[in-house]
Structure formats: C-alpha cells, structure tokens
C-alpha cells in the first residue's frame, strides 16, 4: 500500500481513529497488527522476509544479553577472587562470544538482502565476462522478489542489534514489541531509519488523542502530498520523457532536466518522509528528522549531513567509525606518518573508511553500475575536498575571501548544487552509458540535428507554469523555515487565514496534482 493510493486514504483514517479507541494498554498491539496489514497488503510473501529478520534479530539480541549477564554475574561472584588478568580474560571470552553472535546474524541478514538485491546483477556481469573470454561458464538469472523496504528495515534491525552488542541498551524482551519497532507502518517502506532508543518507547507508550499533534500531523501530511503529487510527479513527466530519448535534446535542455530532477527527487523523497512523519505525529509518535533543507548546503559533506540524514548517521555509526578506527584503518595512518606528508597521513584512516562507506552507499541504492559510480563519485568528492582543504584555505586567505560574505556563501551553495545535480544524473540514468551521454551533451552544450522541445510531450505549458509556481512555494517555505517554525506561525493566524491556506493546499493537491487512483506514481525510494 503506498501513501498516494486510494487504499491508504481508507486505511489511515481508520487506523488512526481506532488507535485512539482501543484500550491504551493494547494500542501498541493494534499498531503492530495495522503495520503488518499495511505491509502485507502489497504482497503476503514479503512477510516471510520481515518475520525472519525480526526473529533472528530478536534471538541474537537475547543471546547477547545472556552473555552480558553471564559476564556481570561471573565478575561479581568472583570479586576479590579473580586477578586483574583473570577478569580481563573473562571479559575477552564474553566479547568474543558476543562478536560471533552479532557477526553471524549481521552476515545472515545482509546476506539475504545482498542475495535478493545483487545476485542477478552479479550473474549478468559474470556471464558478460565469461562470454567475452569465450567461456561456457555461466550463472543463472533467478526470478527473485525484492520485499518493499527491505533495505530500510534490515538497516534498522542491524542498528538495534549492534547497539545491544555495544551495550548501549539491554535487548527487547518481547518479540512482538521488536516486531512493531521493525514494521511501524509510516516508516517501513522508505524510512526514516529509526533508532531503538529514540523510537521504540514511543511506540509502546500509550497515547491520548492530542489536538495539536493531530493538527500538525495532518498539516505535514498535506505538505508532503503537495510536494509529491504537485511537484515531484509533474517533474517526473518531463524527466521521464527526456531520459527515454536523451539524444533528441540539447545540452542546455539536459542541464535544465538535471535541475528539474534534483527538484523531483527532493520533493518525492522528502514528501514521503513528511507524510510518514505527519502520520506518526497524528498518533503522538515523533520520527527522526531525515531532511534539513539540503540544497542550502555549502559543501558536499554538509549536503550528506542534511539529505537522508538517518542513512548517513547509520553509515557513520555502524560502518565509518568501525572501519576508520579498526586496526587496519589505524595502521594505515601509522604507515602514512612514516611515508607521506603529515597532512595526508592524518587523513588516511578516514579515507579508508570513506572509500568503503561510499561504495556501500552506491550499492545500497541499487544493483547497477550507475549506482556504484554514484557512490564512488561522492566518495571522491568528499575525499578530495578533505585533502585540498589546506590549499583552499590558503587561496582564500590570499584572495581575502571572508567566509561569512553573502556572495561567497551563495557561490558555495550554487557550486554544491551543481555537483549534486551531476551526481543525480548518475542516479537517474537507466545505465552508465546514458549517464555519461547526458553529461557529455551538457558539458559540450551539444545540439541534436533535429531538436525537440521540452514542452513537446506530455509536459505542457500549463504543467510548466504549475511546476514553476509550486517549486517557488517550496523554495519560499524553505527560506522561511530558516527563520521561523511555519506550522506554529500558521497556528497563530486567524481561523480564516488558516483555513484558506489548508483549503488552497488541499485543493491544489486534488486538482493540480498528477493523480491516478488506479496506478499511483511510485515513490522513487520504494525500489530500495
């Protein structure tokens, strides 16, 4: 069930109303049942994968808890008996057991994800390679299903398990409660990826109907729908048409399309997150922030701290730090200090971590070379900017550039947006040759022999007008958000003003949105 389907418009009001009608003691049970109903509505088979991830995570966390308890009791019972070395040995044995448990379950779950997502990609590349060397060896191409949201709930589950392993909190004792944490319906399909210590207790606590939560939640949902159906889906018409035959368009038109796609993907993904966050808020549950006006970032690193925030922090906590601060990462730093310039050497552990994180980020987005290159592209940009930072600072000092000057800040924002648009070409193109073809046309400002107008397909002049107007509203809202909380400001206005805004937004979603009740346009991040 997608947020923009008719089914959801029937499901959500019913689920939200019943949530407040069931006895508070059973609210979390109701939330679990409705979340599984929401998820399995698309395909019953998906349930097998979700339940197996939930079960393995639950039992592994329990086992980790048992080892920790054993360690505590043993050390307590032998206090004064154990020497320092014996106590250390006890801790080391327990740590090794815990490491084995967590490694087995992390490998199993990421193994399932990798098999379903990447096996056919691997087969295709292996078969291509075998054919090119005239070998008869080949791997089969399997008919695999990819459960919706598998990347999101697997990451959420493994984050929980690693936190239990690290001793951040004790394991959840109730399997049904863990099942709810991993399946909460607003976030299971596209995130935000929740943390157990932030989200779980909110799901299990009783909630009374709160007028402000309901009002702000519905406002946010409406804003999310506006972004999705008025902006993203309309932009999608243009982008899909252009990318289906990009050779027919000039470099300038392709550059415009790249900008339109950047707007589309932001409106699409952040629109989904707004709907999810608003739906959760209606029930009194606060989800983690996933976007913070990313296109106002001054550097690419900052962009990734403000775009898909929960994925970035997941990679930082569970991959970047463990890799960079592993023995391999630290030894690389020591090796660098002996053989390279100090400025370069000090960055080597981080470079090691970043390289793997960005390769994984590319792969996380999909099983295709253009996604891998997308990840590598950002990895290179961030590593290069880190290495060149001292040089840039020297140049800026020489040129007397003041970091707080408006013009300089504007230049940096524009530069970052340009680099991000280039990255999104790699992301949007169906394959690598198309991505490079589009980039070549843009940089050479090429002109096809027979030109095609951007307004020559399903994207009409009226669509262009609505797109420009709605994007203008999005930009204005983003600028205003810097200075005020818009929802609270709106709440202070008179009833007439508030309802005028609500009605205009609702009517624009209904009448200006690219809606189809039979075949709603999918959210871009559903495929991940």
């Amino acid at each position, binding site marked *: 069930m997608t947020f923009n389907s008719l089914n959801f418009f029937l499901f959500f009001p019913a689920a939200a109303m019943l949530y407040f009608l069931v006895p508070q003691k059973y609210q979390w049970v109701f939330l679990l049942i409705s979340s599984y109903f929401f998820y399995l509505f698309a395909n019953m088979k998906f349930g097998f994968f979700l339940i197996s991830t939930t079960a393995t995570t639950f039992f592994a966390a329990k086992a980790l808890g048992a080892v920790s308890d054993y360690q505590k009791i043993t050390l307590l019972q032998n206090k004064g008996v154990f020497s320092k070395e014996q106590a250390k040995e006890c801790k080391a044995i327990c740590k090794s057991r815990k490491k084995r448990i967590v490694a087995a379950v992390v490998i199993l779950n990421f193994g399932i994800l990798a098999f379903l997502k990447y096996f056919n990609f691997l087969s295709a590349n292996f078969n291509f390679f075998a054919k090119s060397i005239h070998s008869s060896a080949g791997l089969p191409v399997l008919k695999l299903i990819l459960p919706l949201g598998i990347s999101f709930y697997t990451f959420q589950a493994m984050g929980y398990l690693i936190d239990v392993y*690290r*001793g*951040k909190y004790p394991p959840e004792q109730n399997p049904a409660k863990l099942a709810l944490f991993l399946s909460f319906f607003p976030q299971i399909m596209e995130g935000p990826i929740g943390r157990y210590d932030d989200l779980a207790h909110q799901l299990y606590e009783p909630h009374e109907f709160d007028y402000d939560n309901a009002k702000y939640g519905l406002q946010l949902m409406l804003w999310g729908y506006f972004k999705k159906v008025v902006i993203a889906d309309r932009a999608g018409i243009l982008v899909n048409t252009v990318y289906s035959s990009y050779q027919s368009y000039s470099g300038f038109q392709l550059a415009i399309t790249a900008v339109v796609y950047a707007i589309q993907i932001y409106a699409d993904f952040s629109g989904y997150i707004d709907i999810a966050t608003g739906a959760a808020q209606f029930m009194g549950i606060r989800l983690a922030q996933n976007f913070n006006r990313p296109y106002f970032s001054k550097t690419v*690193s900052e962009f990734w*701290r403000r775009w898909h925030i929960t994925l970035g922090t997941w990679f*930082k906590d569970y991959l*970047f*730090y*463990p890799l*960079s*601060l592993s023995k391999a*990462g*630290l030894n690389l*730093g*020591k090796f660098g200090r002996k053989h390279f310039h100090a400025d370069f050497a*000090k*960055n080597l*552990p*981080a470079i090691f*971590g970043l390289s793997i994180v960005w390769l994984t980020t590319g792969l996380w987005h999909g099983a295709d070379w253009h996604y891998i290159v997308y990840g590598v592209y950002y990895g290179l940009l961030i590593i290069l900017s*880190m290495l060149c930072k001292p040089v840039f600072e020297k140049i800026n000092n020489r040129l007397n550039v003041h970091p707080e000057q408006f013009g300089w800040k504007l230049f940096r924002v524009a530069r970052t947006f340009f680099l991000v648009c280039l990255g999104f070409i790699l992301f949007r193109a169906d394959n690598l040759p198309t991505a490079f073809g589009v980039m070549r046309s843009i940089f050479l400002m090429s002109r096809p022999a027979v030109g095609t107008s951007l307004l020559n397909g399903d994207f009409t002049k009226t669509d262009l007008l609505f797109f420009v107007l709605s994007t203008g509203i999005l930009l204005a809202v983003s600028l205003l958000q810097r200075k005020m909380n818009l929802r609270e400001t709106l709440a202070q206005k008179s009833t007439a003003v508030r309802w005028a805004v609500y009605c205009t937004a609702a009517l624009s979603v209904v009448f200006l949105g690219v809606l189809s009740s039979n075949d709603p346009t999918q959210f871009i991040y559903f495929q991940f």
Partner: protein
Amino acid sequence: MEEIIKILKQFRPDIDFENQKNLIGDGLLDSLDIVSIVSEFDSEFDIEIPVEEITPENFNSVQAMKELIERLKDEA
C-alpha cells in the same frame, strides 16, 4: 589537559577548545575530525578507544575527552 588541547589544535586550530563545551552538538567537530583525533589519541596515549565510546558525550569538551582517556588508561 594541555596535551589534549595541543593535539586538537593540530587538527582544528580555528576552534577555541578551552571554552567550547558542545563541540559535537554545535557541529564544530565532524566525523572526519573525530577519526583523526581518535587515531592521534590512540598513538599518543597508547590506548585503544573502542567504537562504542565514540559518542557526543565523550567528545563534546576537552574535559570529557580527558575523562575518557583516563578511564580507558585505568581499564587497560
């Protein structure tokens, strides 16, 4: 304390480490700085800072970093 500040200044001379109490929360130190600092602490103080100790609470101020280093030295 002074030794810690000296190390920190190597990486970020622009930050007033003596007076800042919310280095992570205010976004003054990012994850790349943390990795460089931790790797320097490891070799300078001959300790191993485990990943689970990389929390904002342990790196928000010089005092917090000092306490972390002392605790890890005691546990070693």
